[in-house]
């Protein structure tokens, strides 16, 4: 048993240095990128067009007429969600509340999507 643990001896000073440095970088990157800022506005889109931008701090319910029916978007306590949707699978409703910058809820069947944005909107694209 002890003999099996002897592989620790193979680690030299430089190895420990690199492992420490790497762990430090990992923790640093966690602090940098896992702490997403809260959003300030929500933007509602239908298809390609923007229907409106609303402050996330003002509680309200927004009704959006989509492609197959009416979606209900609720803003409450600095968070937003799709409360009701006419779509069949209800993925958008089950996603629940979003409040972090750059998060989004998309309802493809109804062409309705809502984005949480900070001060200005970032690009959102996938290109090849």
């Amino acid at each position, binding site marked *: 048993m002890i003999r099996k643990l002897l592989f620790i001896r193979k680690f030299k000073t430089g190895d420990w240095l690199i492992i420490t440095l790497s762990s430090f970088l*990992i923790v640093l990157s966690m602090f940098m*990128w896992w702490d997403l800022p809260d959003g300030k506005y929500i933007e509602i889109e239908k298809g390609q067009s923007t229907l409106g931008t609303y402050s996330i701090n003002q509680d309200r319910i927004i009704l959006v007429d989509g492609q197959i029916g009416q979606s209900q978007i609720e803003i409450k306590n600095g968070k937003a969600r799709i409360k009701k949707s006419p779509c069949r699978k209800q993925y958008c409703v089950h996603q629940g509340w979003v409040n972090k910058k750059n998060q989004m809820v998309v309802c493809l069947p109804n062409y309705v999507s809502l984005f949480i944005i900070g001060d200005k909107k970032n690009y959102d694209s996938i290109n090849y």
Partner: protein
Amino acid sequence: MTQSIIKISKSDHMIAKLSAIAVALAIIDFFIPSPIPGVKPGIANIIILFTIYKYDFITGVWVSLLRVLVASMILGTFLGPTFFLSLMGAVMSLLSMYFLKDINKAFMSVIGLSVVSSSAHVLGQFLVVRLWIIPHDGILYLLPLFLLSSLIFGVVNGLIVENLLARKLNG
């Protein structure tokens, strides 16, 4: 029968053998199921590190780049986004190895080199992803996770290479 003009040296044979092992490992690597797409042990790096330590750096470069090329052709990702990710990862990890390979062996073993090269692999891939495939900062959310996995698998792979180097291999 025309005679072959190209003289095939002993080192060519060696590169071919080592690349064949690297390709096999890369394909095994491809089929290992992983909870997060992209988090892979990267066992092909074992052979690259072994080559660099046992032979020389240039042989390692050959083995690494042949590995990327042949494995992508077998897996059908040649010239697709995955291929460029893999290529960039390989190039970045080779670069990091180039700068660190001459460090005194008494100070740093192959384990350190393994960790650095696997981290460089991840960082190179993220560079390509961020600049080209998904130009959005949201992708950086995954970076700590990938760096953590590169540290863990880097140590494991390094230990395997260490054991390989300690053995007497024939062939």
